[in-house]
């Protein structure tokens, strides 16, 4: 098992490496770039633009920039081969070892290999800090969404399978079809109209906390406030979570409840379920211990593959509800051509995709004792 996990992680490394190359190429091949925002500003001269580019290392050829960003190349060495590729000397770190080696040997701290994603071009802040500040709100949102999604989808699917062709089952079918066809952002807008519009104003339309009462989430003041009024603060966040979570999970519930239903129906038709019933076991035990456990096998894999969608969904949900998470950070950075932040966000989300796939396989083995690696 452990051997299998290690092998999968090692296999994932070239894929992640490939992703960074693809995305870096896309980002840097684009016209405009970080200096585009100065185009309308008459006070910025051409020299200032050049200085800006030099200061951020944007004047270097793309391969050199990529090499430095990854941490293979020394930031202070400008030598090049053929005009665009980093020279061998650039791979040597300040202390003489290869720049890619750990900082204790090479003396280099730049690049992803050393855990440094660089600085945000738009704000000048460390990318690591921007991302870690936005990570907690997204984890809260995505975690709650995942929980609601799994519980509702499984309960709906199981109930619909047991009461096949009942009114509930048919309603669930319609819900599944429509929910699956519904764009997340449209649902978000309509929910705001319904629950925080002029008509029925009972839920907050956006934000993470009640700004009139609490300091902005994540600030030092907030944690002081949180310590003093823990229950209020949690309830406040909970209230702000309701609409975003519904928006985020409807599509997934629509798809997965059908999946659970189909899988459950198959399990209920098996011989061992009939045997269990014939032995006189109570219906609940048969359903949940015998049928559901087996029905979960394909579902687990499917859910693992869908977890990354929470991330894409978060981009739009966080924009609609001004949730201060990774999704909104992404939109802001896309707007500002903020490469370092975008690369950081992308690498992290790609890692999540790879890990979720791995998790799905491992979970499969845990649920199904027949499978050994």
């Amino acid at each position, binding site marked *: 098992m452990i051997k299998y996990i290690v092998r999968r992680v090692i296999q994932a490394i070239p894929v992640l490496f*490939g992703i960074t190359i*693809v995305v870096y190429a896309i980002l840097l091949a684009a016209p405009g770039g970080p200096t585009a925002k100065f185009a309308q500003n008459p006070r910025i001269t051409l020299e200032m633009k050049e200085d800006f580019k030099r200061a951020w290392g944007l004047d270097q050829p793309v391969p050199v920039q990529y090499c430095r960003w990854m941490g293979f190349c020394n930031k202070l060495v400008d030598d090049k081969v053929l005009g665009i590729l980093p020279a061998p000397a650039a791979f040597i770190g300040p202390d003489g070892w290869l720049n890619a080696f750990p900082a204790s040997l090479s003396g280099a701290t730049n690049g992803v290999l050393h855990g440094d994603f660089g600085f945000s071009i738009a704000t000048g802040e460390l990318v690591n800090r921007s991302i870690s500040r936005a990570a907690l709100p997204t984890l809260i949102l995505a975690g709650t969404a995942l929980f609601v999604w799994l519980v509702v989808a499984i309960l709906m699917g199981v109930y619909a399978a047991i009461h096949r062709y009942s009114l509930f089952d048919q309603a669930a079918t319609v819900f599944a079809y429509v929910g699956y*066809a519904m764009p997340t*952002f449209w649902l978000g807008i309509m929910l705001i109209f319904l629950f925080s519009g002029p008509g029925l104003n009972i839920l907050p339309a956006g934000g993470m906390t009640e700004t009139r009462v609490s300091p902005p989430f994540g600030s030092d003041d907030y944690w002081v406030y949180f310590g003093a009024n823990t229950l209020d603060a949690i309830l406040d966040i909970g209230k702000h979570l309701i609409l975003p979570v519904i928006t985020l999970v409807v599509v997934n519930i629509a798809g997965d409840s059908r999946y659970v239903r189909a899988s459950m129906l198959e399990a209920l038709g098996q011989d061992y379920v009939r045997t269990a019933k014939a032995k006189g076991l109570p219906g609940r035990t048969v359903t949940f211990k015998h049928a559901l456990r087996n029905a979960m096998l394909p579902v687990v894999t499917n859910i693992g593959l869908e977890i990354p969608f929470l991330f*894409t969904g978060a981009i739009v949900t966080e*924009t609609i509800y001004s949730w201060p998470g990774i999704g909104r950070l992404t939109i802001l950075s896309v707007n500002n051509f903020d490469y370092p932040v975008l690369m950081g966000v992308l690498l992290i989300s*790609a890692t999540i995709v790879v890990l979720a796939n791995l998790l799905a396989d491992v979970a499969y083995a845990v649920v199904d004792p027949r499978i050994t690696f």
Partner: protein
Amino acid sequence: MSESVPSQSAIEAERLRRAEEAGEDYEIGLVSLSQWQLAWRKFRGHRLALVGLAIIATLVILALVGPIFFPYDFATIPVPDKIVYEGRSPSLDHLFGETGGLQRDVFRLVVNGARTSLFIGFSSMFIGVTIGTIVGSVAGYLGGFVDNLLMRIVDVMLSLPLLFVILVASRFFGNGSVVLIVVIFGLFSWMGVSRLVRSQFLSIREREFVEAARAVGVRDRRIIFRHILPNAISPIVVAASLIVAGNIIGEAFVSFLGFGVSPMTPTWGNILSNALTFIPLGNWWWPMFPGVAIILTVLAVNFIGDGLRDALDPRSRA
């Protein structure tokens, strides 16, 4: 009134009956249907798929003909009889109501948006399916190193959070033109198809008729496109329908966030994006109708996909 002439089949039936009575041998004529006729016959039996087809047909006609009767021009600002900032709710004059601000007719916007959105959905699907089919065929037919390389590229592309990359690409390369959005979506929707086609090729290329073709010296290109591909077509068709649905939602998503088609060209996503700023005024009809249009389209395409899956599956002959 003249005597009704007995139909051809009635004459035939009568002839058969007499032949049987006389104890003669007789032949039974079998009507043979082509594969596509069989598929259509089964597709017809799928009620939801027919509903889907009707919806899509209506929308396509609306998208083609509608803008002729309801032309939309960004620079033309409507002159309402009464100025209401948040717009007016649906009425006989404005079936879908009026937008806030300039009080444009929402029906007009939705009809013109249908043209752009459907165009983007279908044409990006064509690009995606073409690339996917070519990559999948080459990988599946040649195998070995080429296969490995192409499939690793697919792995990398599939590990990307696609909408995120599309978002970035649209913002960085797009200039609001529809064609660019089509190309971007096309370039990012071929991976699923290529995997499907590859797996089909892997099994079909081992079959006897391919071996026979190779034995008589048919060239690789002809084997791929004339002998194997037609046999692999059904899963491609089903996948294509799903790509259309996905790309229509995807385009709406990107335009909604303001990185897609220029706001001057109406698409369903653009209309929604504009509506977002007016939420506090409570004009629900503005985002409602383009959203319903998206849902109807995607539902219809999914139904058609289901119908096609049943109709084209050779294992379930009706």
